[in-house]
């Protein structure tokens, strides 16, 4: 992203955010698997697949835009 400055790309920070949130949300979804929260459509276990999606996207962003690779 930067030519004058060697700044870590913002996409790397997006990846870190997704990865951490994905892990937290997936863990929360798995923890409540047998007794889901009292929300509508809780039986679909949205936190599990949404957390998984965030982990996947986060990992891709972290790998593609990791600081060492940019320079």
């Amino acid at each position, binding site marked *: *992203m930067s030519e004058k400055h060697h700044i870590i790309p913002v996409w790397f*920070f997006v990846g870190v955010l997704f990865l951490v949130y994905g892990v937290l949300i997936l863990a929360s979804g798995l923890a409540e698997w047998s007794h889901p929260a009292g929300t509508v459509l809780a039986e679909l276990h949205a*936190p599990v697949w949404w957390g998984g999606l965030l982990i996947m996207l986060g990992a891709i962003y972290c790998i593609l835009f990791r600081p060492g690779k940019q320079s």
Partner: protein
Amino acid sequence: MTLLFAAADASRLAHLSTIDLVIIIFYFALVLGIGFYLKRFAKTGEDFFLAGREMTAWVAGLAFVSANLGSLELLGWAGNAYQYGILAAHWYWIGAIPAMVFLGLVMMPFYYICKTHSVPGYLQLRYGSAASGLSAITFALMTVLMSGVNMYAMAVVMKVVLGWDINFSMWVSSLTVGVYVAAGGLFSAIFNEVLQFFLIWFGALLIPILGLIETGGWKGMVARIQQNFPGQDFTHMWGPMHSFSSNPMGIHWTGIVFGLGAVQAMGYWTTDFLVVQRVLSAKDIRSAKMAPIIGSFFKMAVPLIVILPGLLGLAVLPMHLVPGGQLQPGQHSYDEVLPLMLVRYCGPGLLGLGVTALVAGFMAGMAGNVSAFATVWTYDIYRPFIKRTAPDTHYVAMGRWCTIIGLFISIGTAYLAMKFASLMDYVQNLFGFFIAPLFGTVLLGMLWKRVTHAAGFWGLLAGTTSSVTMFFLMKFNPRWVAVFALSPEAKGLAQAMYQSLWSCATCVVVTVLVTLMTKSRPDQELRGLVYSLADVAKEEHTSVLHKPLFWGLVALALLVVLQIVFW
């Protein structure tokens, strides 16, 4: 830790779990960490105020859209979708896309090649100090006032939804913004806006997905709305606008096409420095042209996470929401539809993600306000009128101090709004007063070399004065609504559209008349500032897929398809 966040309030909509709080705290830690990391790169004025002019088209484009995607925008427009139906999507489609494409293809080259730091900076070059000073002072004042009012409104939402103490919400979020913007300048603001963009999408996207599963798809949703609100049309965009009385907004299609699409949207997206500043950070002219066009595709998709949840609220919520001013105990206002839908579908973890998206939206909006305020104050008020010559480091230091000072003025405004509720009504209309006439002034200046300094100033002043006058006449004497908004049935949004249209027309007429009576500047003084005297680089050797014009046309074609689909 929970005690820190919550004031015991049994009426709150949601209760956060420990995992939700961890998610929120991690976001605060990350943005502060990014701010301190970026501080080392924000050394010169160009670094601090324009992020070094080295952002790619994608980063500048996302920041451009994101600066407008604040949490109040999300809550407010989801509420408008509940109140007015899919008509609210006009503000995302015809009320944004043509203007963004126009900015990229027509106006951005002028802003970029004259190397201005701001929109008032362009006015300084084109019209001189009077018009620039008027625009800079009103923009700086309005920016911090708006920021304060938004801050208070957001704190109220956090109290209603989560039971958070208002003072706690305001101080923690605004001080965090102050620290990271003062550290990294526009670098920090843009990084945070890009993060916020992704957070909002992934925090809110589950609502329409789960909502459509619950209703059995679009057709199921429409059937449920018709069952809950018989005889009302909430799901067509143009059909119900053949007359003022045939839609819940009280607007005619001319108000949408000319007031919203041709004036208000053009004014906001092409001259509001808060959003234009993001594009000015682009690394080259092609990126500067592409950034708003890239942004237009994302803007086109935003109704999915804002308008659709409002419509789903009409279909699935067991209660009917009411206007904010008519709330009785146990009722909810239109603006609470998005949090209500969030709570309906999102349990621990996902709720924290959704709340973080709202908080991040507020913080990014505030970062946009204070960074734009710091730039306009330093370059368009302090430097031309107070201290003309000083080293670059002096202006950077001034920018950092302005960030903090702007923040405290915003906090003060928030407390004023807390004490005088009616102040919010007025301040939220302030930008409407200035944006539409400013568009007339900037556009005439770019396209017609004959326009003079005096014409620019008097046109802008006349347009702004007429806008304020129309607003107060309609506010205090409904008889004027039928005169300016063409129908006594025009509601607030419809009135604003016609107010924009007439104020821009006033600006243009006065500018033309004064121009004809005054002496124009020689051509050599206008090089690079007007269309007929600008050497805009041609992109003859790039492939079609790399041409901004091609992608601009694709965006417009998609817009037409969407209008036909939801006609």
